[in-house]
């Protein structure tokens, strides 16, 4: 004896958010039923396994049919097949495009290609995210990337407009797209301690200040690539370390400002030239695509690690970077004020974000 066919269709499509999440998480029907049975929320309904199974099947089918539409969220609003209230549509879309940060951390900076897709089972094993869910998230990244890649205008707004996502989620996608496009190195062991949020923040900074769109409010170009000219100009900053006088002057100005204010003053004083040289070197090398990719690993190896070994506090670091940046303006011979500001602004906030255990 078996149920051959069991279907429930509402004029207004009924969506159970809990089941939707289970589906998105890549659970099979039987797993979902088991989890629902165990959850407390439903215990008051006295639902039997049979009832839950039938309900879960219905919901899963609905989601599968909706999935095609979710791939192009703007279609969901003017399709006729499912009558779904607008706020539910928004929920469906938002949830569908939400992703696990642990998963995203693994994919970050990788090429969104078939090759990476093949590695998804490893990622699934490592992160504990179900393979099905990994695939969905990966495909989402790929889809968003493909649509947004060639579009003009601000990246975040493009994502938001085409996929009807919330602001914060759109920003996360912008980060993913940005990293995938520039292929930043994130996988090195030394970078493992950084979370997706850390990188997303940095990506946001880079998008906001270092891309073409950042200066030239949208119009011509796009947000995905860093501004070539700016990167080229960064070579000029070398003067700060190459000119012996300037370097000494800079050091004394910073030391003067920080004296008594930071705990790691002596270490700072001893290390100033190295640290400054590290930051300027990173800047001057950014013309090279390979070195752009290594931006984060360089920051960690050349700057963050030395600071950490000297036991700088975050407060120390903040004060140091603030004054390191500002005192450069008072150097008489230094002419690249705007360039310096643009570079250091981003570097400072990135370093501060990345400076943790």
């Amino acid at each position, binding site marked *: *004896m*078996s*149920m*051959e*066919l*069991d*279907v*429930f*269709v*509402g*004029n*207004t*499509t*009924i969506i*159970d958010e809990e089941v939707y999440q289970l589906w998105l998480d890549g659970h099979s029907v039987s797993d979902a039923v088991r989890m629902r049975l165990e959850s407390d929320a439903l215990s008051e*309904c*006295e*639902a*039997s396994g*049979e*009832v*839950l199974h*039938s*309900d879960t*099947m*219905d919901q899963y*089918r*609905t989601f*599968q*049919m909706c999935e095609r539409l979710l791939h192009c969220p703007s*279609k969901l*609003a*003017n*399709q*006729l*097949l*499912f*009558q779904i*209230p*607008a706020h539910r549509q928004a929920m469906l879309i938002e949830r569908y495009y939400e992703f696990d940060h642990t998963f995203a951390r693994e994919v970050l900076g990788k090429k969104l290609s078939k090759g990476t897709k093949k590695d998804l089972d490893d990622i699934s094993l490592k992160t504990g995210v179900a393979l099905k869910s990994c695939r969905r998230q990966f495909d989402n990244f790929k889809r968003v990337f493909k649509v947004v890649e060639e579009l003009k205008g601000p990246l975040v707004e493009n994502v938001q407009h085409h996929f009807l996502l919330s602001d914060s989620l759109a920003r996360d996608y912008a980060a993913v797209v940005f990293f995938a496009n520039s292929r930043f190195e994130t996988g090195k062991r030394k970078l493992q301690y950084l979370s997706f949020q850390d990188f997303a923040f940095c990506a946001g900074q880079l998008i906001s200040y270092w891309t073409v769109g950042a200066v030239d409010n949208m119009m011509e170009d796009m947000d995905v690539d860093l501004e070539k000219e700016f990167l080229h100009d960064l070579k000029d900053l070398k003067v700060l370390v190459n000119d012996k006088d300037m370097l000494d002057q800079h050091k004394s100005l910073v030391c003067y400002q920080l004296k008594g204010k930071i705990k790691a003053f002596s270490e700072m004083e001893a290390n100033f030239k190295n640290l400054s040289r590290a930051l300027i070197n990173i800047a001057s090398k950014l013309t090279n695509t390979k070195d752009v990719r290594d931006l984060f690993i360089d920051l960690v190896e050349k700057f963050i690690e030395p600071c950490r070994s000297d036991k700088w506090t975050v407060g120390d670091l903040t004060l140091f970077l603030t004054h390191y940046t500002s005192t450069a303006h008072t150097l008489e011979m230094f002419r690249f004020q705007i360039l310096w500001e643009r570079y250091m602004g981003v570097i400072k906030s990135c370093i501060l974000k990345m400076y943790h255990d």
Partner: protein
Amino acid sequence: MPGKLKAKIVAGRHLPVMDRASDLTDAFVEVKFGNTTFKTDVYPKSLNPQWNSEWFKFEVDDEDLQDEPLQITVLDHDTYSANDAIGKVYIDIDPLLSSEAATVISGWFPIYDTIHGIRGEINVLVKVELFNDLNRFRQSSCGVKFFCTTSIPRCYRAVMVHGFVEELVVNEDPEYQWIDRIRTPRASNEARQRLISLMSGELQRKIGLKVLEMGGNAVVGYLQCFDLEGESGLVVRAIGTACTLDKLSNTYTPATAINPCNSSPSKDIKEAGFGEEAPGVPLSSGPPTPLRAQTFSSFSPSKSYSRQSSSSDTELSLTPKTGMGSGGSAGKEAGPLKALLRQQTQTALEQREFPFFTLTSFPPGFLLHVGGVVSARSVKLLDRIHNPDEPETRDAWWEEIRQEIKSHAKALGCHAVVGYSESTSICEEVCILSASGTAAILSSRFMQDIFIVLCLCVRFEDLMSPGCAFCHIPYDELNMPFPAQLTYCHCCRRYKVPDVLFTTIDLPTEANVTGKGCLIQARLCRTKKKAQGEGNATAISNLLPFLEYELHTQLMNKLKLRSMNALFGLRIQISVGENMLLGLASATGVYLTALPSPGGIQIAGKTPSDITYEQHISNMQKKINDTIAKNKELYEINPPDLVEEVIGSPIPEPRQRSRLFRSHSESSDEVSELDLSHGKKDAFVLEIDDTDAVEDIHSLLTDAPTPPGFYSCNTEIMPGIYNWTSALQMFTSVRVFRLSNVNLTNQGLNKVFNDLCENLLKSLYFKLRSMVPCCLCHVNFTVAVPEDELIQVRTPSTASITENEDQLQFPLELSAESSSNPLNSAKGKLSLFPFALLALFTLKTQDTPSVDYSSFTDRCSSWIEQLRLKAHTIRCGSIKTMSSLEKASPLPEGRSRSLRSNRSYAGSSVTVVKMTPLSFIPGTKIIKYLGIINMFFIRETTSLREEGGVSGFLHSFIAEVFAMVRAHVAALGGNAVVSYNMKECVFMENPNKNQAQCLINVSGDAVIFVRESELEATPPQPHSASAQTSSSGEGT
């Protein structure tokens, strides 16, 4: 050449990719009507083509306009090979043919393909220019309005109810064994879709002609069904009630003022108007229309092997009655006046061949008394229909059944059958035809205006006993057609009522109900020997009476268990499979205040020797008693012993008078001696003498109670609940169950079937848990036993279709309040209309002094005197309200216009369309009926597994059907479908070939509704309209 059809193809969107190379489509459109075809240009390389075509004009007969659908085919142009069809859209032109319905069809339609389902959408504009046709011998019936709604539609009033109309057309089924002939399934399914569309158009036209002939202008309660008889063909049949309807116009009051005597808005009387106690008498007489004796389809001797079995189920008749035809003498006593009246109306009705009405709820005052359920079934052997133009056999079959129903009604002392419906169940070449309805006595006021005075008398009686009159027995109590226990009505205490009442109609709005109602289902499954042809028919007809008897017992037991005394909306469905018969009866149980309270259930064992056995029985008895007590609490049924006195008190004066006048009535003196406790004396006794009975009782108790916050009923409104919100959710659920065990006993089968139904209900409650508190309304299960080629395994499958749900939210104490004091609620329901009408009516009698009073007794005339007095006071009242309302209604026209413009929502591109099987949407007002929706779809697949198996296939198909219905309604300018019904859902599969096919037929009325809260911003127009007409009526 009386019509010009114009169509314009605007654009397409979301088209499928037809050219793999470019990932694009070169689409063009063919527009076909009749034999004329137009084409648009090819719009190259786009999935969102903008054709923006010229207007394609078809000059056609209006006959064709009614029969044919507009056929739109979207194709992909291919230079080298044949053009590929993307899909089709069929548009029914009918709504455009009536001046009052839609004027233009415009909107996005899903492009539908029988294999691929919905493939994109197309934007189409359709208009019709009709020329006046003065030809008396025309074959068309344009302008006759059709409504699926089984009550007078909300923005109309009935001037006249003409009666029963029926028609059937037959044809060869283009493809009845689809799975055997795999030529081009798509082509044959499309042919089939088109044919059925044509046939239903033709059917509607023919029915329309009959209506015109009767002098009507509309069909209400239109019920169209398909019989897929397989090899013997395809039958499309329809029944309905012909009416003359008048639109309740808010804007053109002068029009109604001209004809003041017609202003009887038979509207919903729920909106409280006045606070007076008596429901008024909405009495009007339509324009004098000659009553025609209808000659329906020809009678031809039914050929062949037909076994007939039938039974008339009335209240308490637990044994199928086959030999009761001698009821013609009913209505001889009970006061000469009443008898006279009855004879008069009876003759009026007897002039019709079938005094049947498909309506289930009526204008106030139309339904006088209800006798009980009458039903007839007959088992027939199908044979090929040789000449489709002469469908005599099928006609004769139905004729036979209807005659039987009529005679049953007569036996109950009734002259009419209301809530009438017909259905079939087909298995191979055996077909069970069923018809059922409720025997009733109707007021003649909607039929003929000669009997006004008689009506008046009856009306007056009813004034005495608001809300209980319909329960009073219509038959002769000394000469009862079946054994029944009669008691005096618990409301008025003057007339006899039966102890239980079964009906197929909705609960009359004026009825007094104690507590809440609930859904009651009886389910039964019986094995049957496999047989062929005549033997099979014999076996089935032998089984039928037992099946019905048991269903009845079950219903009765369950009713008692819930301590209720009446069933409304009773629907018994019997379906036949190769080796079993399934019976499913659903109804809404209520406690009618007028009827005696039901006794409990007592169990008696036959073998009292065994002690453990005794104990077992007493345990069971205890369980039953507990359940009854629990149910009483659950449904808030407080035996109204105390309330009893209160009920009578608000109307003491007229009652005294009536007693004076009605001294002939032997009953009136005994009022005080009514025995209220009688129920306890004769508890219903169940005897347990074998395992069968134990099983039965067990199944009685296994019905899971509805979870808290849920209510369910299968009628339009839930008795005892008055505070609805407008949130509603319609749904369809289908389940097919496969029995793997071949040799199941009756009990085993029963249990399986019972569990299936129970589980489905449980599932529904679970799914809708977020909507609590809510009420499942119109819960109608449909069972079928489809064929299966696997010989040893039969699939008794339950396709349960169209359960529907409406949400209501209310503070619980409020509802308790209204139900504990039924009188209050009855008061609240009274509205302004009845009063205005009463005044009008009296005027009418005054204007026609030629009415011969002398033929009646003194009593009669003094009644009239009294009524006049009463009318005087009421008239004053109505004038008052009229003036107050007049002040408040300065801008009716502007308002309605602004409402219309609201319809097209600026923000979202897709109009939200509500669907409901109810004839109304709670908390809203229907302001326009746009036409009937009657659609037929076939979907097939050759990749069943890939589409998610049978469930996935059907799920998407049903979703597609919903989408197409919504799109059509939106294109007509509507925002809801009421009286929605999925009448057919035939599913066939062949898993071995990875194929499946499904047919779905849906119907409903497209409407525009506005929320009452929106209406309240400006004065409620219907009120003002009727007040104005009443004032003008008094002027004449």
